C-alpha cells in the first residue's frame, strides 16, 4: 500500500514542472550566418543557443556587452530582435557503430536517404585530447595497401600522417585506397573468424569538396565493398562555412568513440586547407582580429587541437587508437605556405605528392626525398623491414645518379647496375588506384626486386612481371603467402622457399 502511494507521489512530482531560470537575449545583428546577440549573460563558450523554430547556434565570441554566435544550418529565418535562449548543452553528434555505412552531415544527421540512424550515445564535438599518461607509442601498422607507402613511409595506428601535394596529384586516392585496403582486411578476418585481428574502421570527412567529388568517393567505396566499415561526413562547398568549420571535429568525435571503446579507427580530413579557409571566413565575420594571410591568430590551435585528438591509448585505457590522415592542398608545390607549414609541424610525418612525377607516370606520385614518417617504422612488420630497410636510400641514390648520368654516357658497371636497379624499383612502386596490395605480396615482390630476380627483365615489362609474380604466388604458392602473413618475418627457411618459388616463376616467365 505504502509503495503504491509513494509511486503516485513520485509520478505527481514528475508531472509538476518547477519554474526554472532561463537565460535569454535578443538578436541585434544578423548576417553571413553570424548573429550578434545582446543579453545572454550566462552563455558559455561553445554552448548551443536556441533561436526557436528548430534553429540552433553556437556561441563563439563572449564579449562585454554581446555574444557572437554562428548559426548552424539555415539562417534566413532569423530576424533582428528575435529571442535567443541558452540551452546549457555543448554541440554534440551521434556516435557509435550505427553510423557505419552511412553518409551524415556535420551534425550527424543522415543525408543518404537510408532512414534514421540508430545510436544511443552522443559525443561533444569539441573534446580535450587524451593526456600524456593515457598514451602509448605507435606499434601496430595501418596497411595502406600502397607499396610505396607501406615500404618506405609506414604508418602506425594512432599516427598522424599528412598527405600533401598540388591539386589532382592523387591525395584523396591515397586516403580512399587505405580505406579500401583496410575494409578488405577486415572482411577477410571476419570471414576467417580471426578473433585476434583488430578491425580498422574509417571515417572520411569531406570539407569544402564538390558534391560530385563526395558522391564519387561514396560510389568508389560502395563498389569496393568498403562502406560497411566507413562513415562519411560530408560538408560540401555549398554548405555554410560554419558547417565546414565544424565537420572535422564532428568526424573526429565519431572516430574517438571507436578509440575510447578499445577499437581502432582511421580518419581522413579532406582537406584541411579548405577547413582553414572556412574558419577564416567564420572568424572574419565574427570580427576577430586577423593575422597572416587574413587567417585568425588561432588557426594553428584549430588544427593542433584537432590532430592531437588522434592517439594510441595504453592497455589500461582500452588500447584503442585513432589514426589521422589529414590532406593539405598546396599551390604550385609551395610547402612553405602558412597552413602547410603549420600542419607539417603538427603531424608525425608527411607524404608529399609531386605534380612532375604524376605526369611522368609515376603514380602514386610520392616524392621519396620529401616524404617521411617519424614514428611509423616502429609499426612496420619485420618482413617489410627486412626487404625495404635500404630501399629509401637506394632510391635516393638512384635519383641522384640518374640526374648525373644525363650528362655523360660512360658509366662504370656498379653505377650502371644501381641505375638499372633503381629504374626497376620505381616501376615496382607504380600502382593503379583503388587496387591495394596485401602486405605479404608487397614483401615478396620487393624481396624479388631487391635480390636481383628482376634485373634481367626489361624495365617496360617490370609491371607485367610483378603482376604475374603476385598472381603466381597468391594462387600457386598460397601456402607460402599464408605462412608469410602468419610469421610476419622472413626467416631463413621462408627465404629459401620464396627463392625457389621466384626461381620457378622466372623459368616459365616470358
Amino acid at each position, binding site marked *: 500500500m505504502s509503495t503504491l502511494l509513494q509511486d503516485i507521489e513520485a509520478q505527481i512530482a514528475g508531472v509538476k*514542472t518547477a*519554474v*526554472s*531560470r*532561463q*537565460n*535569454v*537575449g535578443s538578436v541585434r*545583428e544578423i548576417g553571413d550566418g553570424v548573429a550578434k546577440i*545582446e*543579453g*545572454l*549573460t*550566462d552563455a558559455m563558450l561553445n554552448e548551443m543557443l536556441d533561436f526557436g523554430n528548430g534553429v540552433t547556434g553556437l556561441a563563439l565570441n563572449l564579449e562585454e*556587452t554581446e555574444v557572437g554566435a554562428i548559426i548552424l544550418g539555415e539562417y534566413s529565418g532569423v*530576424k*533582428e530582435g528575435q529571442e535567443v535562449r541558452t540551452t546549457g548543452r555543448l554541440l554534440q553528434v551521434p556516435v557509435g557503430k550505427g553510423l557505419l555505412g552511412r553518409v551524415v552531415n556535420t551534425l550527424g544527421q543522415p543525408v543518404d536517404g537510408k532512414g534514421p540512424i540508430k545510436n544511443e550515445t552522443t559525443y561533444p564535438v569539441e573534446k580535450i585530447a587524451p593526456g600524456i599518461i593515457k598514451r602509448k607509442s605507435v606499434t601496430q601498422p595501418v596497411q595502406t595497401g600502397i607499396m610505396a607507402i607501406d615500404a618506405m613511409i609506414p604508418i602506425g595506428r594512432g599516427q598522424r600522417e599528412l598527405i600533401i601535394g598540388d591539386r589532382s596529384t592523387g591525395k584523396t586516392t591515397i586516403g580512399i585506397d587505405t580505406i579500401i585496403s583496410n575494409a578488405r582486411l577486415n572482411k577477410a578476418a571476419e570471414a576467417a573468424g580471426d578473433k585476434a585481428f583488430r578491425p580498422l574502421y574509417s571515417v572520411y570527412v569531406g570539407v569544402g569538396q564538390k558534391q560530385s567529388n563526395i558522391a564519387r568517393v561514396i560510389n568508389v567505396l560502395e563498389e569496393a565493398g568498403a562502406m560497411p566499415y566507413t562513415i562519411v561526413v560530408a560538408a560540401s562547398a555549398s554548405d555554410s562555412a560554419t558547417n565546414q568549420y565544424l565537420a572535422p571535429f564532428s568526424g573526429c568525435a565519431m572516430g574517438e568513440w571507436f578509440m575510447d571503446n578499445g577499437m581502432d579507427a582511421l580518419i581522413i580530413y579532406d582537406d584541411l586547407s579548405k577547413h582553414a579557409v572556412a574558419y577564416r571566413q567564420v572568424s572574419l565575420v565574427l570580427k576577430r582580429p586577423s593575422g597572416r594571410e587574413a587567417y585568425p591568430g588561432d588557426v594553428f590551435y584549430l588544427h593542433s587541437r584537432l590532430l592531437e585528438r588522434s592517439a594510441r591509448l595504453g592497455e589500461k585505457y582500452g588500447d584503442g587508437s585513432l589514426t589521422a590522415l589529414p590532406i593539405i592542398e598546396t599551390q604550385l608545390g609551395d610547402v612553405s605556405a602558412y597552413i602547410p607549414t603549420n600542419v607539417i609541424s603538427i603531424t608525425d610525418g608527411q607524404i608529399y605528392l609531386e605534380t612532375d612525377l604524376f605526369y611522368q607516370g609515376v603514380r602514386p606520385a610520392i616524392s621519396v626525398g620529401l616524404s617521411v614518417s617519424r614514428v611509423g617504422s616502429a609499426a612496420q612488420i619485420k618482413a617489410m623491414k627486412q626487404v625495404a630497410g635500404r630501399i629509401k636510400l637506394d632510391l635516393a641514390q638512384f635519383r641522384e645518379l640518374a640526374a648525373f648520368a644525363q650528362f655523360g654516357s660512360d658509366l662504370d658497371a656498379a653505377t650502371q647496375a644501381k641505375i638499372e636497379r633503381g629504374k626497376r624499383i620505381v616501376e615496382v612502386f607504380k600502382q593503379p588506384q583503388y587496387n591495394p596490395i596485401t602486405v605479404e605480396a608487397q614483401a615478396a615482390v620487393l624481396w624479388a626486386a631487391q635480390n636481383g630476380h628482376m634485373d634481367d627483365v626489361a624495365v617496360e615489362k617490370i609491371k607485367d612481371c610483378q603482376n604475374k609474380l603476385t598472381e603466381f604466388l597468391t594462387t600457386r604458392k598460397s601456402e607460402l603467402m599464408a605462412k608469410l602473413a602468419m610469421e610476419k618475418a622472413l626467416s631463413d627457411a621462408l627465404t629459401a622457399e620464396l627463392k625457389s618459388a621466384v626461381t620457378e616463376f622466372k623459368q616459365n616467365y616470358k
Partner: protein
Amino acid sequence: MTVARARHYSGGRTRPLQMKISKQARRDAKQLFRACSVNGLLEDNRVRQVVQLVIGQKPRGYISILTHFQRLVKLDLERRTAKIESALELPENLRAGVQANLARKYGPGLAVSFSQNADLIGGLRVQVGSDVYDGSIRARLAELADGFQAI
C-alpha cells in the same frame, strides 16, 4: 540616437546601419559610464550631467562616444529592470511579495514594472536583465508541445 540610415536590401525593408565606433570612443564612453556609478549603481543625475558636458565641450568623436555611452546605459538599465507580466492584474500583496523576493535576489536599485499580457493565459513571467522565470501557462504548453515533438 544618431545613426546613419541607409537603404539596403534586406527582406524588403529599410533598417539603420550601425555607426562605426572607434576603439578610443568606446574607451572614453566606458570611462564616462564608470564615472556615473556610485557603489555599483548608476546615478541618473550624473548621467544627465555627463551628456550635457560632452555636448557642451564637443570633444573629438563626441557623437560616437555618446552613442556608445547611451548603449552602455541602456544595457545597465535593462540589467536593473524587472518586467513582471501576468495574465490578470496582480493584487497588491502579491506584487509586494514578488518585489521583495526580487530585491532579495538581485539587490537594491531594481526598477520593477508590472504589466498585463492576456497571451500568457495564466501565471507569471518575470524578466530581470537576461534572466527569465517563465511560470505562465503558455510556457508550460510550449514545453509540453516540445516534449511531444521530441517523442
